[in-house]
């Protein structure tokens, strides 16, 4: 019997279903949009096929580029925070006793089975002026104030001023971190879980501290998981439009909002298509950049 790991037939069987599905139900539809991106908007917002690069020229004008640049920044910051929060979370689940792993995983993913819109509205209820966070702060402020009253310094704390936490870029970042956390945690968990703990023990036995072990053993060994998780969280943040819509201020438009605007109210599908493809090219450029940097910086395992 031929070894299936070297068999062409087995290769075809493994690849065929997904390849077929993605060809027919993703690539062919996408090709339609690609053709649209060279078209023109008709007076009523129809898509008129043409061979014009005008939409691409518009897409790289100053204002769309500025919005794209801003989106890259917001996506980067939110991904970094996601990683800082997600790594301990993934470790906590992966290093838990075996029978706790799946239940813990469920606990991590459960909040994301609530509708995205509802979750975002819940954040509004927390962050707004009359929200839970400000209620909590006001309560703490009152306690402190009473405390200072007791020791004879009443009014030291002054009047409570609720914080304005919503409708700015920080709120967008909080929202994005929340929305994209599972996309980072799950791949990371899948890699951490298989981490051979004898390596860590060896490192600790040889006298390296926890931090040193973490950075010189755990991180390099789980690089593929980190890379996939960061990739998913970053890309999903980059294309978002609902979070900036609901939590953002007057300057929080991201590239996803602009694309939604073109497919929606402006009814300019060709321009919206061109913008989508520009975003895709930029994303692939970032991926390529990451792969190049990864391969240059001394073989830190396989990336991606």
């Amino acid at each position, binding site marked *: 019997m031929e070894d299936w790991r070297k068999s062409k037939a087995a290769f075809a069987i493994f690849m065929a279903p997904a390849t077929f599905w993605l060809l027919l139900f993703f690539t062919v539809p996408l090709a339609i949009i690609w053709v649209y991106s060279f078209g023109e*908007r008709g*007076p*009523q*917002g*129809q898509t008129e096929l043409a061979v014009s690069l005008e939409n691409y020229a518009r897409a790289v004008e100053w*204002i*769309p580029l*500025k*919005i794209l640049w801003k989106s890259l920044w917001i996506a980067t910051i939110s991904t970094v925070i996601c990683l800082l929060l997600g790594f301990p979370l993934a470790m906590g689940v992966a290093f838990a006793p075996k029978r706790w792993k799946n239940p813990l995983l469920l606990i991590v993913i459960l909040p994301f089975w609530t509708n995205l819109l509802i979750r975002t509205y819940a954040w*509004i209820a927390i962050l*707004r*002026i*009359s*929200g839970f966070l400000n209620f909590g702060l006001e309560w703490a402020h009152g306690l402190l104030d009473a405390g200072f009253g007791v020791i004879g310094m009443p009014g030291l704390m002054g009047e409570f001023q609720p914080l*304005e936490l*919503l*409708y700015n870029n920080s709120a967008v970042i909080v929202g994005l971190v929340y929305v994209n956390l599972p996309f980072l945690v799950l791949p990371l968990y899948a890699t951490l879980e298989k981490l051979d703990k004898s390596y860590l023990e060896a490192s600790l036995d040889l006298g390296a501290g926890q931090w040193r072990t973490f950075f010189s053993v755990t991180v390099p060994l789980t690089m593929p998981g980190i890379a996939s998780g960061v990739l998913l969280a970053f890309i999903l943040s980059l294309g978002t439009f609902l979070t900036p*819509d*609901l939590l*953002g*201020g*007057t*300057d929080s*438009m991201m590239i996803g*909002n*602009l694309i939604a*605007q*073109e*497919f*929606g*109210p*402006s*009814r*300019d599908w060709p321009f919206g298509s061109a913008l989508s493809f520009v975003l895709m090219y930029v994303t692939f450029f970032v991926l390529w950049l990451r792969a190049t940097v990864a391969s240059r910086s001394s073989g830190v395992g396989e990336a991606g």
Partner: protein
Amino acid sequence: MIKMGRSTLSGVTRRNFLMGSAAVGVSLVAGAGRGQAAEEKRVNVYNWDTYIGEQTLGTFNARTGIQVQYDLFANNEELYAKLKEGNPGYDVIFPSDYMVELMITTGVIVPLDHSKLPNLKNIHKNFQNQAYDPGMKYSAPYMWGTMGFGYRKSKFDKAPDSWGAVYDPAQASKYSGKIALLGDQRVVIGSALKYLGYSMNSTDEKQIAAARDLVIAAKKHIKSFAEDNGQDLLLSKEVDIAMEWNGDIVQVMEEDSDLSYVVPKEGSNVWSDNLCIPKDAPHPENAHAFINHVLDAKVNAEIANTIHYATANAAAKPMLLQEDLDNPAVYPPEAIVATCEAIVDVGDNTRLYDEAWTAIQAA
């Protein structure tokens, strides 16, 4: 895939199942099987959520025996996007004014058969010859309303009855950070155009640029371009003044008596929603029966009294709630309505608004 149709427990009928399985192989289903003669007792209605009476569908079913399949959309653009590539099977849709015009020019909706709609006579004469569809050839008017300011009375010495409340720096600075505008390019730029004394549907590049600069200058005082939730921002005291649709403000006025609504004196947007039949509707007969039912004076009054919107139906008036009739947020004074304009599709000039709006967001 066939298994999928069977395992679908509810909400999917035999018909959908057949459609699903037919889709696997052949693509012959689209036009076929939609016989003219005997329509199945069914009508597919596509409407906004909470935009119908509590008894409307039940009484329709009781009167005609036709089953209503009710689906929802959230805005005109989605509705249009869904239908412009071909009708997925809806019989009755509820587009707004400018969308009706757009759908007529692009052939998305078909003319109504007035002989099957005797209740069209109930429509108020003001609505029988709208610019977007004179003579109601394609659309039966449903509800109408305005766009204006919802505001917190205790924070204002007098009602903010001018767009200057947000666009005049001297006035806006008093409410800096307590202002929300709508996240809608045409109405925000439109309101600035109105403040400058132009038409909401201006196609003049200079006028639109002036309106854009006005909004950009006001941005430092504006908290958010609210995605149609300005009423919540008002109610939670996040802002003191919010540009919003009247229906949304009417709802929060019931909850907080300190809130009120005013249409700015420079004029604003007046909108109206309509019942239309899309091209290739599978059940045109039933669609007409449904529209005629909604236009019935009694049925229509029940709808208006449930959703607290102003109806375009004159015959329903005697049965309307007095509190709605007396509420200027539902039925604003006629003199004010006269200054308002409906949004009109501006064709190629949409791009001017699009670019102005993007510039406002990026500024």
